[in-house]
Structure formats: structure tokens, C-alpha cells
């Protein structure tokens, strides 16, 4: 028979995490806890230069003086930073020369994730830098990219091979003093991705990194740095899933994007980390700092589809420094059971004629809390700045919450700022209409939700959009029958 709100609520509660499996690869890990010794251990393990060790130690000294932020609309037990393992690497540290050398178990893991690398390489032309725990184990398409002068490698490798670039740009957009978690990341980050597109080069393929937290109790502190030199273009994809856990896992990444004059960066994320079980036990804490800097005529577009994590604290932002620069933020955030998300963006208008667009779509189910928090800041210097924000919330049950915290600070009277917000409940009328046309409840929900998120999904590259739709379906699966 037809499908009621209460049934949906019940079904959503019963839905278990799909990607709950653990890969058994022996780890080479640091003892638990955080002190200067551990930082020196990480740095030594990674054979880092002196300047980077100094960077870490300075960040650590700053971090010790800082306190955890409490302004977000989330409630959780604060992590015990002395109970975390800060370094863990798959034992096989040797890079694979060819795909055939890759550990079959690892291949299987990827197959379960539906991202068979062979298939990706052959069919989609996506270059994948697969990060399992903290060390990159496979990088593809590298030679092809190298022909164009594009650098796409693990962060550690970049430190070794391109220290001048890393040194120049690291911390230039997200300084180590930025916030508690950015400081922590700066002290203990283990690996991540680095990408540099030379002047005037249009990267011919989507660059993609799959992160995966794999070692019990290992915090992941990824660092990503993407630099598009003048007139360059790159589309960068980041996607995550994590195995099921009992204890909370902390993830505090830093992502910095730099778009120099006339450059464009599209940064797309599909995130599906373990959200905890239906009682709210376990799950990932995702405290991420993502920010991009736009120089003159540059454009940065963040697109994210967030379905996972127990607690999310994430505001991909744009600093529109150059005149005529453009910042965009497109987001779908799904929360279920006891998940909490406080996510949004900051658009900082400094240059003249700068434009920003914010489209945020929240979907709350179960007993979850979903908040949009956004800041639009127009500085004195930003003549004729323009912002459009749209924040929509969709409620699936009576027990969940949707919240909107939009902040607008305007110091230039020539600015035009628009803000639209809606809150709606998934309509029984819509579902009945679909059912009456012969469409099953499950497909109806999927259609309605995908339709609701369409403006955001449209921003994703094709292959990623398909994956994102699958994720949305998985997140809401069991919501029917």
C-alpha cells in the first residue's frame, strides 16, 4: 500500500551502513598519543626536510594554546587527543610499479567500493590517487599528466620532488593559526594529495582521490593542496568511504586551493564515511577546513555531496581576492539516525565585481540534526560585489531538525546580496502521485530526492554524479520496504 511518513521514519532507522568492512593489512604505526616526539617520529618516518619539521613543531606549539571550537550546532564527546594513533602506514611502503603488483586484497576493497581502478582507467579516463590510511599506494596516469607539466601526486612525494611549490603555497590559504583543527592538522598531517597545473594548461581529465580510513583508532589528517597557475583549469574529485567502527574516529583534513589569475578550479566531493549505527554509536568526526583563494578573474567552485560521518563540521570557502573573481558552493548534506552536520560556506569578497553563488540542500531523516551555516562578507574594497544564496531543507521525519544560520556582513553599499531559504517536508502527495503512475515507493523517494538535489548534482562531473545518486539512494534505502 501507499507509504506513510511514520513508516519512512521507521525504515530509515533500520538502515545499516553499506560499506562496513575492514581490510586487514598489517600496519606500521606510531604509539598512541601526541607530543613533540611523535611529531619528530612522523617527520622522520616520512624523511622530511628540516623546514617541514619546523612547520609542524610551530603548529604544535600553537595548537597547545588553542581550545576546541564550540560554536557549531553539534554535540559530541570531545576526542581524547592522547588516545589517537597519529601515524599508520600499510606495511608495504614500496610504490607499485604496475597495477598487477597491487595487493589483491586492496583491489577487492576497491571493488567493494565500486571503484575498480582498471575499469576507471579504461572506461572513464579518471586518474586515481588511492590513499589507504596514510600512504599513497597507487598513482595512475601520471606519465600522461607529466607530458603537460601537470603534477599530481601524494603530498609526501610533492614534499620530496617539488619542495619549492609546497613551501610556497602550503599554509597560504589556511594558515596554521586558522583554527584548532587546522593547527592540529598542520602539526601531524601524514599524507594527502598535491596537484599543480602549469600556466595555460587545461587538465584533460578529472583528477580523483579516494580516501579511506582503514586502521582502527587512527585519526586521519590529510592535507590537500591544489594550485592552478595563471589561466589553468582543473576538475578535482574527492570521494570517501570508511569501514564500520565502534570507537569514534577523528578526521581533520585541510584542503587549500589556489587559483591564480584567470584560473579555474572545480573541486567536487562525495563523502560517505561511517555515520555511526542507528543508536548513534561510533562514526567519524569530520572536522575539515577547506578554503580556496581566487586571484584576478579566477573561479573556484566547491561541490559536495555529504551523506556520512557522525559529526560534520565543514565550510568549504572562497576568498575572492582578485577583481572579477567568482566563488561557487553547491552542497547536498544528508543526515540520518543521530548524525549531526553543521556545514556551509564562507564567501569573502575583497576584489571588485566579485560574484558568489551558494546553493545548499539539506536532507534530514531519523533523529538527525542538519544545519547550514554560511557567511557572506563584503569588504569595503569590494565594489559591485554580488551574492546569491539559496538554502533549502527537506525533512523526512518529525523527529529530525533543520537549521539555517546565514550571516551577512556588508561594508560596501554597492553590493547586491540575495538570500532565499525554504523548508519542506517530503510530500505524501508527491509520493502518492508517483505510486499512482506505477512507480514503486523506493523509486519515488529516489526520484523526489534526486530532483530536489538536481541543481547540485548537475554540477558534478558525469561519473561522479552517478556515484552521488547511488549514495543518495543508499542513504535513503530501506526507507521503503
Amino acid at each position, binding site marked *: 500500500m501507499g507509504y506513510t511518513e511514520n513508516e519512512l521514519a521507521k525504515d530509515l532507522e533500520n538502515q545499516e551502513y553499506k560499506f562496513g568492512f575492514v581490510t586487514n593489512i598489517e600496519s606500521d604505526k606510531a604509539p598512541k598519543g601526541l607530543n613533540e616526539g611523535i611529531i619528530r617520529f612522523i617527520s622522520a618516518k616520512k624523511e622530511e626536510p628540516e623546514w617541514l619539521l619546523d612547520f609542524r613543531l610551530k603548529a604544535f606549539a600553537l595548537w597547545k594554546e588553542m581550545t576546541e571550537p564550540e560554536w557549531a550546532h553539534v554535540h559530541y564527546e570531545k576526542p581524547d587527543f592522547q588516545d589517537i594513533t597519529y601515524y599508520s602506514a600499510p606495511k608495504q611502503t614500496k610504490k607499485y610499479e604496475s597495477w598487477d603488483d597491487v595487493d589483491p586484497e586492496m583491489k577487492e576493497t576497491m571493488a567493494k567500493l565500486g571503484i575498480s581502478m582498471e575499469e576507471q582507467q579504461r572506461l572513464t579516463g579518471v586518474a586515481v590517487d588511492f590513499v589507504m590510511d596514510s600512504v599513497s599506494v597507487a598513482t595512475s596516469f601520471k606519465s600522461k599528466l607529466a607530458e603537460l607539466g601537470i603534477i599530481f601526486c601524494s603530498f609526501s612525494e610533492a614534499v620530496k620532488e617539488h619542495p619549492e611549490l609546497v613551501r610556497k603555497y602550503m599554509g597560504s590559504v589556511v594558515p596554521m593559526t586558522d583554527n584548532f583543527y587546522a593547527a592540529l592538522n598542520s602539526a601531524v598531517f601524514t599524507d594527502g594529495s598535491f596537484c599543480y597545473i602549469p600556466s595555460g594548461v587545461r587538465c584533460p581529465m578529472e583528477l580523483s582521490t579516494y580516501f579511506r580510513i582503514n586502521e582502527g583508532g587512527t585519526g586521519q589528517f590529510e592535507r590537500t593542496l591544489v594550485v592552478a597557475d595563471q589561466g589553468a583549469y582543473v576538475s578535482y574529485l574527492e570521494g570517501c568511504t570508511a569501514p564500520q567502527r565502534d570507537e569514534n574516529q577523528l578526521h581533520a583534513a585541510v584542503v587549500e586551493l589556489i587559483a591564480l589569475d584567470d584560473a579555474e578550479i572545480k573541486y567536487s566531493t562525495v563523502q560517505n564515511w561511517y555515520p555511526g549505527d542507528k543508536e548513534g554509536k561510533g562514526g567519524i568526526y569530520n572536522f575539515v577546513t577547506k578554503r580556496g583563494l581566487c586571484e584576478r578573474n579566477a573561479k573556484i567552485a566547491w561541490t559536495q555531496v555529504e551523506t556520512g560521518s557522525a559529526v560534520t563540521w565543514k565550510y568549504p570557502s572562497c576568498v575572492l581576492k582578485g577583481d572579477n573573481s567568482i566563488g561557487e558552493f553547491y552542497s547536498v548534506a544528508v543526515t540520518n539516525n543521530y548524525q549531526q552536520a553543521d556545514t556551509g560556506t564562507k564567501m569573502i569578497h575583497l576584489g571588485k565585481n566579485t560574484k558568489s553563488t551558494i546553493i545548499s540542500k539539506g536532507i534530514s531523516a531519523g533523529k538527525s540534526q542538519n544545519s547550514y551555516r554560511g557567511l557572506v562578507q563584503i569588504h569595503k574594497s569590494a565594489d559591485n560585489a554580488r551574492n546569491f544564496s539559496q538554502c533549502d531543507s527537506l525533512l523526512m521525519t518529525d523527529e529530525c531538525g533543520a537549521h539555517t544560520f546565514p550571516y551577512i556582513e556588508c561594508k560596501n553599499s554597492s553590493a547586491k546580496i540575495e538570500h532565499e531559504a525554504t523548508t519542506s517536508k517530503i510530500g505524501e502527495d*508527491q509520493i*502518492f502521485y508517483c505510486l*499512482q503512475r506505477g512507480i514503486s515507493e523506493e523509486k519515488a523517494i529516489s526520484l523526489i530526492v534526486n*530532483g530536489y538535489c538536481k541543481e547540485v548534482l548537475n554540477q558534478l562531473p558525469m561519473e561522479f554524479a552517478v556515484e552521488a545518486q547511488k549514495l543518495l539512494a543508499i542513504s535513503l534505502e530501506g526507507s521503503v520496504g
Partner: protein
Amino acid sequence: MITIKNLHASIDGKEILKGLNLEVPAGQVHAIMGPNGAGKSTLASVLAGREDYEVTEGSVDFDGADLLELSTEDRAREGMFLAFQYPVEIPGVSNVNFLRTALNEIREYRGQEAISAKDFMAMVREKSAIVELDPKLASRAVNEGFSGGEKKRNEIFQMAMLEPKLAILDETDSGLDIDALRIVANGVNKLRSEKNATIVITHYQRLLDYIIPDVVHVLYDGRIVKSGPKELALELEEKGYDWIKAEQEAK
């Protein structure tokens, strides 16, 4: 096609249908008229399987199947179509995506293969012409930003696409100007055949100038109280419903 016997249905504990009997054979068009609150739209909702209504008594045979035992979507897959009085908007979902999903679900239910994109688009072109629907509307989101007339034409377009055995038109004429009314009625007439049946629910006789019914029924206080040829509609138009009420009260 459909045989309704002694149907009782209520919503929130209030009985709306109070022992309704109705038989519509294949190849015929039956009109159901009646004053406000008689239960016309309730009948449409109950037959389509809207959950808010509880059927407390009676039976409905739909082309050999026990309709009341079927889920809402299976009723649709068995060939029942309801043209909504107030078509629902589904933002972000294109009409074609919606219809292709519906069509393929119905085909799967019937053990048929999914329709190819090419055949589907050809079908869209052919069927949208029946109701003079701009094919561009087919790629717009379902009913979103459609005018009242476009929404109703879209309902008949969907009906043409899904090729139901029984179509129930719930106040399809409401909110239509005379030109739109003619277009919608023409569409319905083109879809009439010996194999399907249509129930037209309407307040006004006007629609029946264009869709000529085989039988006109008067629904009053949850029951069919009078049935007759198409001339009955004219009589109702002329005399209103008071005489029906008086007749019933006299009983």
C-alpha cells in the same frame, strides 16, 4: 471493466461512501455528477488507493482482479489511471524521466522489456500531439511552473503514454477555459477504444458536450442514486440537484 459493490469508505472515522454500486463495462464512458460533498473525489481516491481512506465494506472487481487487495502502484500497473484534480509538482524531476520510470515499472510488472530511449522519445512526440502539448514541456520538471491548463493537458498526456485500461478523470474540466477544455476532451476521445473504459467525474455538464458519456450517474450522499442516458446531464444542468435531494429525502 470495473464492478463496484456496496462500497463503504471513511476518512478520519467519517463515512463518505455509504454503499456505492457502479458497473462500467469496457468500451464505455460513464460520467459521475453530483453536488459538492457527495463523495465524487473520495470515490476516485479510494479506487486509486490513497491511504488516508479506509474501506470498511464492499468489493471492487477490476478486470478480474480484486482491486482492494492491490497496492496503489499495482493498481496503476494493472491499468488504472487517475487524472488528478490537482496535479502534483515534483521539482527537479523531468516529465520524461518521470514517465519513463513509470512506463518501465509498468512494463516490468507485465513481464515486458524496458522501452528503448529511441522508442520512448518517438512515443512522447506522438502522444504529446494528441493533447497539443508543447514537446518542450515534456522535458520540464513535472508540473512545475505549468499553467492550470498545461497541468490538465499533461495529465491526459500521461494517460496517453501509460495506455490504461480504466481512466478516472477527476474534475479534469475545472479551471479550464473553453479552448483548453476542447483540447483535453479531444485527447480523451482519441484514446477511447473498445478495450478501455473511462469514468468522468465532473460538476458541470459542459465537459459532457465534448466527451459524450454512455451513462450518467448521480452521486449523492455516498451512493449512486440515479443513472440514465446522457440527457440526464442536461436535466441536472437545468434543474440543479435540489430535486435529487428532495427525491432522496422523500425515500
